[in-house]
């Protein structure tokens, strides 16, 4: 299985295309900023997610944060391991901490997302205010 390029939205949600479709999850920066994730509300297989609309939610410290989808597409798989171990997101968000796999509808939507390098600059800039 080859991992595709990592792309990240301004909402701190990543997309990583591989054989299973496009895996989506939250960025390392977001995982760190939120602290220990204690609950993940997963979408359901077959859901049609729409770019920019919430598709899942993560909870940390009594705050439930809805995640806007970085791209549109049908949910092919969800990471059920997160039900028992939501902190996999904190440990390995780009690996075992993926949330869902989507079928990519419009490849061009990926072009609207940032590369990891650009994203790192984006969050560094945001932190400096």
């Amino acid at each position: 299985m080859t991992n595709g390029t990592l792309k990240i939205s301004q909402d701190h949600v990543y997309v990583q295309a591989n054989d299973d479709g496009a895996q989506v999850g939250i960025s390392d920066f977001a995982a760190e900023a939120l602290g220990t994730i204690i609950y993940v509300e997963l979408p359901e297989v077959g859901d049609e997610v729409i770019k920019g609309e919430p598709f899942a939610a993560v909870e940390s410290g009594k705050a439930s944060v809805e995640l806007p989808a970085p791209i549109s597409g049908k949910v092919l798989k969800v990471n059920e391991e997160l039900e028992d171990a939501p902190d996999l997101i904190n440990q390995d968000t780009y690996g075992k901490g993926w949330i869902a796999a989507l079928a990519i509808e419009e490849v061009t939507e990926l072009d609207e997302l940032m590369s990891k390098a650009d994203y790192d600059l984006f969050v560094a800039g945001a932190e400096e205010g």
Partner: protein
Amino acid sequence: MTNDLQDGWIVNLGQARYLEVLDLQRRLVELRQGNFVPDTLLLVEHEPIITLGRRGSKDNILSHAEELASQGIKIQRVERGGDVTYHGPGQLVVYPIVHLTQRNLSVRGFVDLLEEIIIQVLADFGIQAHRDPQHRGVWVEDLKVAALGVAIRRWVSFHGIALNVSPNMDHFCHIHPCELRSEQVTSMAKLLRETPSMEQVVQKVVGRFVEHFPGRWREISPNEVFEGSRIKREFGRTRTAGVVASR
């Protein structure tokens, strides 16, 4: 931009139904995302109701639904964080609808501020309260006086923090509030010889809130907010423009 203080609305709803205010919050969140309304602080007292957060377990509701219904207590599942909580008369519920990224706030920073505001308000009334790193909310010794549960939708907050001023403490016996036993909950009335009025507490909360969320805050009426948010999206734009023009 940095010198340009954001507008803000303060709405004291008095007593209002949970579901009506939930609906209002959801509409305001959507309007806030589009910058049609400024940050808004809602203050309200609800009828007796038990709410469950996204991961909330019905196991933490101790009484049967029929028994609760016979006492007029409803159960509602909502999108906030946290488990089960109780709202009712005598409890001040504070819902800040705040655009976190526009204020450069992290989710954690925002939650910290809400706790800090309540801790300072309690100090204003002579109660020494603190936070617990393991358990969100505000505590007096090992008793919980304010419960917290927020939701973030596209970087706009809703839901919030509920401060027990003088609620009917017996109602907490229907639940395990966030995995606590009900006797681990307290109120300002239990802690003070003289219970402040809800209005006094509201004033202090607004005062502390405005300190921590700088802006040109002004009070607007519940009617304006309910009607305006229902009728049209331009509501906020005209309202805010009017404020600017009148200066």
